[in-house]
């Protein structure tokens, strides 16, 4: 209490700026040498604070994130089965193998399909849902919790649940039978023509809630005055959304798309849990990450597995940099300007 009072009185004395009356006056008049040493001491103090505050996080981040990634690049140059230190240096051979590996081409195309379809399925749907849920309707809070449920549940549970639902004698085929739609019963998980669509449905089901929440958060940052003014001018609801809300939601959409792209390239858990390493490749749902783990951990080709990890990382990084250069830069530039204010 006394503290806050003190702050107030001091600030009142200071407020006629430049006319320093009581508090700050003595300090400003003090000789320049003293100022310099005070400044130097302050600078050292600041360095010390920066070191203490950032040190632990930087150490743990370098040790457990940057270092292992660098190590993956290093192991990628070796033929190595995980016992003892890697000695069989093969240069870029692993990478030549990858580029000529038909299995890798398969997983790469699966990742590409997942990436594109995730954007196409989830994006528009999530925007429409966010616009609808941004209206003042009853039970909005409950609706929000419910649509976020799939995102909060772990991949293992989603995978276990959906594989029980989609297996040949599972709940979906049972439901189709009960509804008299037995003709549509199929092998949702093992038919190579269908499995990738089942996977896309599960991915969309799981992650669309995140997109909706992100867009809702973005919508709340848009001032309501704009749409109010437009509606007074006679614009219809959809006109307002199209010409005012959507353009202003642009930065949020671009951030979401970025996260979605990175997520698609790195997809592992769901595929590994539902299909496992071997079924995934025959069902046509294997991804770069499941192939990497299959080669590295399950088959013992650690050098090759790490080279796959590096390729995966380079692809992600390239896409991320291009994306940032051409799409996100405008947004971040705006953010910096805004922050400077």
């Amino acid at each position, binding site marked *: 209490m006394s503290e806050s009072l003190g702050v107030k009185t001091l600030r009142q004395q200071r407020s006629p700026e430049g006319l320093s009356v009581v508090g700050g006056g003595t300090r400003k008049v003090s000789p320049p040498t003293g100022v310099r040493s005070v400044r130097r001491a302050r600078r050292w103090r600041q360095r010390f604070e920066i070191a203490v505050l950032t040190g632990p996080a930087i150490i*743990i981040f370098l040790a*457990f994130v940057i270092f292992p990634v660098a190590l993956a690049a290093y192991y990628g140059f070796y033929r190595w089965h995980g016992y003892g230190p890697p000695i069989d240096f093969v240069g870029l051979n692993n990478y030549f193998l990858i580029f000529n590996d038909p299995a890798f081409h398969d997983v790469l195309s699966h990742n590409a399909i997942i990436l594109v379809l995730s954007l196409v399925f989830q994006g528009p749907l999530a925007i429409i849902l966010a616009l609808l849920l941004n209206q003042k309707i009853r039970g909005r809070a409950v609706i929000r919790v419910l649509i976020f449920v799939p995102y909060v549940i772990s991949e*293992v549970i989603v995978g276990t649940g959906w594989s029980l639902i989609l297996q040949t004698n599972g709940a979906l085929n049972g439901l189709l039978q009960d509804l008299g739609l037995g003709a549509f019963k199929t092998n949702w998980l093992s038919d190579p023509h269908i499995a990738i669509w089942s996977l896309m449905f599960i991915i969309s089901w799981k992650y669309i809630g995140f997109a909706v929440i992100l867009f809702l958060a973005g919508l709340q940052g848009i001032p309501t005055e704009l749409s109010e003014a437009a509606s007074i001018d006679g614009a219809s609801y959809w006109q307002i959304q199209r010409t005012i809300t959507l353009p202003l939601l642009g930065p949020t959409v671009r951030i979401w798309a970025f996260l979605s792209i990175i997520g698609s390239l790195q997809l592992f858990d769901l595929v590994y849990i539902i299909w496992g390493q071997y079924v995934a490749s025959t069902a046509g749902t294997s991804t770069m990450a499941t192939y990497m783990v299959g080669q590295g951990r399950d088959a013992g080709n650690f050098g090759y597995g*790490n080279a796959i990890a590096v390729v995966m990382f380079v692809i*992600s990084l390239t896409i*991320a940099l291009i994306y940032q250069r051409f799409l996100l830069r405008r947004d971040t530039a*705006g953010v910096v300007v805004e922050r400077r204010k």
Partner: protein
Amino acid sequence: MSTSTLRTPTPITDGRRKSINWSHPLTYFIALVFIAVSISPVLYIVLGGFRTNSQITVDPAALPAPWNLGNYFGVLTSDTFWQETGNSAIVALITTVGVVVLGLMVSFVLARYSFRGRGAMYSLFAAGLMFPITVAITPLYIMVKDLGLVNSLAGVILPQIAFALPTTVIILVPFLKAIPDEIEEAASIDGSSRIGFFLRMVIPLALPGVVTVGILAFIGSWNSYILPLFILSDQGIYTLPLGVKAFSSQYSQDTAKVLAFTSLSMLPALVFFTIFQRRIVGGLTGAVKG
């Protein structure tokens, strides 16, 4: 009829109300369909736990008849379930505390100190978003093994803290930047050091962001699969996701029990999220606005 005559004198509100009235039934309908799609698989898991295996075999898509509590009872009285829940809870809590404490400290420096290399430091953490745990998992496993932390919870906690830092920094820095400079000046005039300002003013003011970051870290840890999969091979130290996977392959014939185990293991994250969901949207709003 009477309402329309009442409205006529104010055409502006009339127009607005009309558009809302028109969209409401459709809004509710779409929301309901969406909720049904989101929730029904979860309900299938929860309700399936109340059925018996013969019920599931006869008709895979039906309600429990009669309701059978045996599966849930069996899971709740098993040591495995509680042990795995305990492991998951320890890992998630320590990870959350670690992420929040370390993340706040770094974000405070990045947001409120000006020094050479600040941009580089921010980029370093931001680049971490592009280093997902999948890419580094093999070397990470070897490193953890060399540190002697395989089959210990610390071997999961430390990497998890490290990999959660980028998101944390990106969400928290805007929050800490948004605290007006006047407050810091006032505090320093009042004799408070920067650290004192950090402890007494920044932490309370950044609380919405801190809560968001904490929840994301907790749920992320509670659900994480690939890291424990590599680090923990001893069943006694499994976390819940590994436990669910092991349970579902061990009892692959006992579908009902698997469903019961699965639905009980998702409960804590759901409860946690439901309590704090409003805070998550609030926290993300700050982050998205920048």
